[in-house]
């Protein structure tokens, strides 16, 4: 009888963490990121899962961005993340920008793109801890040639 009860508890213990993980890393995060996006137009979302020990490489996503276009990226971090994830935008090998600036990691940033092409979003956790996050790319504004910020 005791063994059976232990088996049931063990089964519950195995099930509960995955449910928690789902709550911390699943749809709830997506809702948070979409809520933070505000009235801008949703384009795409990125489901970010970082394994422990991947601080330098992180995970990469490819995205086509258009010239004369103002984008916003909102990032919702998992509640158990030891730190906020860092997002970097690369054009080929050239680092264009990152959400880590002025000594802090921003949960949103905007990017004014002036060249149409395939860009790379590299997401990492500097401390190398396990982390999850959801990022939402949205459209803020499209500029005419004359309107582009100088």
């Amino acid at each position, binding site marked *: 009888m005791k063994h059976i009860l232990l088996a049931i508890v063990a089964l519950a213990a195995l099930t509960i963490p995955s449910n928690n993980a789902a709550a911390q890393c699943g749809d709830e995060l997506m809702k948070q990121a979409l809520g933070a996006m505000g009235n801008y137009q949703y*384009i795409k979302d990125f489901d970010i899962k970082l394994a422990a020990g991947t601080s330098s490489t992180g995970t990469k*996503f490819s995205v086509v961005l258009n010239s004369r276009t103002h984008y916003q990226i909102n990032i919702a971090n998992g509640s158990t993340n030891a730190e906020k994830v860092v997002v970097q935008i690369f054009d080929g090998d050239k680092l264009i920008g990152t959400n880590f*600036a002025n000594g802090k990691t921003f949960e949103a940033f905007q990017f004014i793109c002036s060249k*149409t092409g395939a860009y790379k979003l590299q997401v990492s956790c500097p401390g190398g801890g396990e982390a999850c996050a959801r990022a939402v790319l949205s459209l803020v504004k499209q500029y005419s040639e004359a309107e582009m910020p100088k």
Partner: protein
Amino acid sequence: MKKIFSTALGAMTSLSVVLSLNSCSSCSQGQGELADFQESQDDTTLIVSAEVVGDMIQNISSPVEMANEIKSSGVQFSQSTLNAAGQEGKYETSFKRAVNLGVYAADLGYINTFGKNLVVVDYLSSIKRLADGIGVGQFLNFTLLSRMAKDNTNLDSLKQLSVSSFNEIDKYLREQKRSNVSTAIVVGTWLEGIHITGSVIEQTKDKGLIDRLGEQKNIVEILQIVIHTYARSDNDFKALATEIDKLKAIYDNVRITTEMGQPVTKEVDGMLVIEQNEITTVEITEEQVAQIIAQIKSMRNSIVE
């Protein structure tokens, strides 16, 4: 004791059955749907790996951005430019269904952007049938989308849900190693987006849209690689490869120059803003524009007919 054991075992069995059903509620559908999407087509036999293809082609064709740009040009909504709703019955192969699902996705983006909710439901019906036909209908909440369109209340949510449904389809297909199907959808969406843009350019000669058409040179180069990857073992992609080669040959004469600059990061009212600071110039002649539009029209018509 025996009773408790059997109850616990029963509970565990039920739980595992429920978990299996949940985790695979979307797996069974579609496996048998692709008999005509050339069985030999396997992600592992491609000259470019499925992962690279996925990376290359993700988000190539955001209907949101193109539709917004068209609306900004001041042109009126034109339903006659779109593929008419209700055509899905004539698309009998999985390739045709997938590529036309993409075409209708672009049309839906255009319709949503112009807020023409009266026709949204017709297009959603066509999209749902095509999605079911290739085993991805479970990602489209047709009832909710239709209700949102009919209620005419929350257009932003309708647009968001439409786009995110297609993103889910794309993600699922890649996970299922059916990136050839996903690629067909992306190609359809891109072609229809450029076809609509071309039609607007013919009417307006809008400089911003002409530049946007010229900038597709970079995208055509990516599409050419991806399409040729699948063309090695799929006749539908082979036919498409011949046509994208013709398009690429026209684009070869379009010049895109970039004046390099250093990106600047600044904080504006608490928001971090990154400015790229490069200047891109597109040199494209009227003749090249006409040739590109004609070739796009030809490719698009052979897909929707």
